[in-house]
């Protein structure tokens, strides 16, 4: 073993799973067994997602929280804002949700559930999720700059990101109530966590982005206030 390898191992040997990890795994396994026994239509992969969403809702303490993303059927065509253009996309079911590849070969994935009054997870339709996707915005890194895109607009936000990797922006869009965007852990390579709210986060300062020229295409989002929506998206690295 060479010196670099030895020191690398010593450094990363400090990382350990939490003490209660086995318990949580066991609980998840029990859920799996129950689900298998019942042969129900519950969406296996979404238990963790729903748990995470619940945690988010509690953290933010807001009923109208909306998480941008998408999902669909076996193979469904939906219209999505992609790179500043409204694009018709054919999405394929992939177990957890749906995925597709854009013309540049970049792979995308998304999925989501709602939770009904009885606490049951219900898969969102492709159309519902496309609506959520189309009310979100994303940040991409390019040539050392960070570009935020929302519908047909694009903004260079490189110099707006706070030192702690956070960013809060607002874009006035009369068709979308969820336009207070929060980003966390933004890195120079463009990875981050994000959420959108229908009102400013208490105490947070939002940068107002110019909405001149924003597309007015489509209808206003009319998501019920009591709907708990949890969705995710993924974008391939390579």
């Amino acid at each position, binding site marked *: 073993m060479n010196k670099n390898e030895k020191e690398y191992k010593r450094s*990363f040997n400090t*990382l*350990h799973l939490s003490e209660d*990890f086995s318990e949580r795994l066991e609980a998840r396994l029990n859920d799996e067994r129950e689900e298998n026994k019942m042969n129900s239509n519950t969406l296996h992969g979404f238990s963790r997602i729903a748990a995470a969403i619940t945690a*988010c809702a509690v953290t933010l303490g807001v009923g109208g929280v909306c998480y941008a993303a998408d999902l669909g059927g076996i193979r469904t065509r939906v219209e999505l804002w992609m790179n500043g253009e409204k694009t018709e996309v054919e999405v394929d079911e992939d177990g957890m949700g749906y995925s597709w590849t854009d013309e540049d070969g970049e792979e995308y994935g998304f999925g989501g559930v709602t939770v009904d009054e009885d606490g049951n997870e219900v898969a969102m339709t492709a159309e519902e999720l496309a609506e959520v996707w189309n009310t979100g915005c994303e940040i991409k890194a390019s040539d050392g700059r960070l570009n935020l895109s929302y519908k047909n607009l694009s903004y260079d936000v490189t110099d707006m990101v706070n030192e702690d*990797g956070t960013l809060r922006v607002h874009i006035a869009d009369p068709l979308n109530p969820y336009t207070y965007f929060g980003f966390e852990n933004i890195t120079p390579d463009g*990875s981050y966590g994000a959420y959108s709210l229908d009102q400013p986060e208490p105490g947070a300062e939002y940068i107002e982005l110019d909405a001149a020229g924003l597309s007015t295409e489509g209808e206003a989002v009319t998501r019920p206030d009591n709907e708990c929506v949890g*969705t*995710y998206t993924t974008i391939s690295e390579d």
Partner: protein
Amino acid sequence: MTTDLKEICRKYGDRLYAAAFNICRQREDAEDAVQEGLIRLYRSETEFESEEHLKAWLFRVTVNAAKSMCRSFWNRNRTSYEEYMDSLIFEEPSDRSLMDAVLRLPEKYRIVVHLYYYEGYKTREIADILELSENTVKTRLLNSRKILKAKLEGWENE
């Protein structure tokens, strides 16, 4: 070869976590990725030819889960990895500097470095796990070494 998930978790859990953390740089996401990897193993009907086959499969699935996790478009009440590192007990001060330098590498470099130096995989094996070409892996490893050499006093030329 054991198929008992608890035993597999005991054996590989921390190693999978280290790999997932290398990608996510976030404890909760990394643990979720490990859980996802193990649950997929539970569901899987794959006939593993050997312990190595199982291990490589687990790393592939966990790494992919971690990538999805850290690119997820949802919010979490996250803590920075620097804060998490403050809670770790490093044997040597230089161990922390090394981890910090690695975690500051571009995401696509980090996992290559980790699988090479921590898991001892060869570039061909890393290419299989990450579903990349071997040349891509070699380039990423080379670039990572240059960056680490520039940042870390103790990093040796290879």
